[in-house]
């Protein structure tokens, strides 16, 4: 996926992808956001996830590490956090060629619902979506679980998440003076 360089609006580290999604919607940004995992422990950490927006509403998703687009790209960019996120503005006309690629498209509410786990934000994103896009859960793939399923199919990533949690649990048990006698 190729996009012209946009105008950098904001760049920072967040613990949760919800924040940039909410902010982009709030400010009706047309452009794209680049998500980069901060945690090198996890796989795909070298790749970057890109989500484009029209008036704050997500249109396509792509991951540079896995070269996948659409809902699986949302799964690829998902990490337990934190993320480095940069938001760029771009004219709608510059986004058009990419937005026409059906395979890259994600339903408007999917990033908020499945990646950020925020149904309320997903609902307001759907309400903000233009009429021609599916806005009702269940309609035209909007409600589908494909991003979650793609995440669950990534056995290596899940193994890494579990291993990281295991180490953290053990380390904290020691700090907290817990032992499993």
């Amino acid at each position, binding site marked *: 996926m190729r996009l012209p360089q946009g105008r950098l609006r904001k760049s920072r580290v967040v613990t949760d992808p919800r924040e940039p999604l909410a902010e982009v919607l709030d400010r009706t940004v047309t452009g794209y956001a680049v998500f980069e995992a901060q945690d090198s422990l996890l796989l795909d950490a070298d790749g970057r996830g890109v989500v484009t927006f029209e008036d704050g509403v997500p249109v396509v998703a792509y991951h540079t590490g896995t070269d996948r687009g659409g809902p699986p790209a*949302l799964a690829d960019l998902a990490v337990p956090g934190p993320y480095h996120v940069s938001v760029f503005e771009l004219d709608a006309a510059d986004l058009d060629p990419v937005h026409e690629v059906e395979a890259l498209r994600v339903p408007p509410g999917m990033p908020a619902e499945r990646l950020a786990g925020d149904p309320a934000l997903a609902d307001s994103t759907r309400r903000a979506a233009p009429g021609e896009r599916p806005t009702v859960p269940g309609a035209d793939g909007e409600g589908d679980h494909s991003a979650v399923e793609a*995440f669950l199919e990534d056995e290596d990533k899940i193994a890494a998440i579990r291993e990281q949690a295991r180490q953290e649990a053990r380390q904290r048990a020691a700090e907290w003076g817990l032992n499993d006698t």
Partner: protein
Amino acid sequence: MVEVFAVASGKGGTGKTTSTVALGMALAERYDVTVVDADTGMANLLFHAGLSDAETTLHDVLAESAAVEAATYDRFGMTVVPCGTSLDGFRDADPARLREVVATLAADTDVILLDSPPALDSRAAVLPVVMADRAVVVLQPTIPAISDGLKVQEYATSYGTDVAGILFNKVREDGIERVAEKTERYFDGPTLGAVPESERAREARRAGRPLLAHAPGCDAAAAYRRAADSLTVRDGASGDVADRFRSAVIPEPP
């Protein structure tokens, strides 16, 4: 016989309290059930069980200013141990005493459900999961909720607590079966159920009643009953039950 379950999830709002009370009511048809609000920092079980004006709560017990019996209430066929919501109550409560409380309750009930805090970031927050025999992990069909649920499982198993199963809640769309099947592969317990998002659940909370009392005929209530039915309560070694919890890991007060 007693088995202690922690109803847990990595974060708030997934429906732990709703699920604790619903599973408790459903299990109460077969067992003597006690539900405890072990989320002592952000207690809200009292609001789900019509106990918002309870005089004595778990806070008082944990502050050693009341006996456990004074904080137990018979409601909806269960024994309910609510927790107070005041900051003072929280400050004076010693979370480590929860072990004693569970040990006392364990002498006289079949099933204890611990409504657990939404985090794993302190001794007090992990204590219910540490003490439980098994955990019921409440999930929503989203990437962060499942990641957090996996984390809960790793903490639980690291502390010797098994996973009784996973319970999807607030399910809004079709196709949860495939998600459940794929999720199950990573969890040590089966999928107990998938509870639909339901206006009845929100109404019940506003009415201060358990979902199974407020709308027993709704789909969500039916899903909770099926989940409870699929939960096989194990016979604990009842003789040394109290000792089991007293000798569990000993966290110090914060």
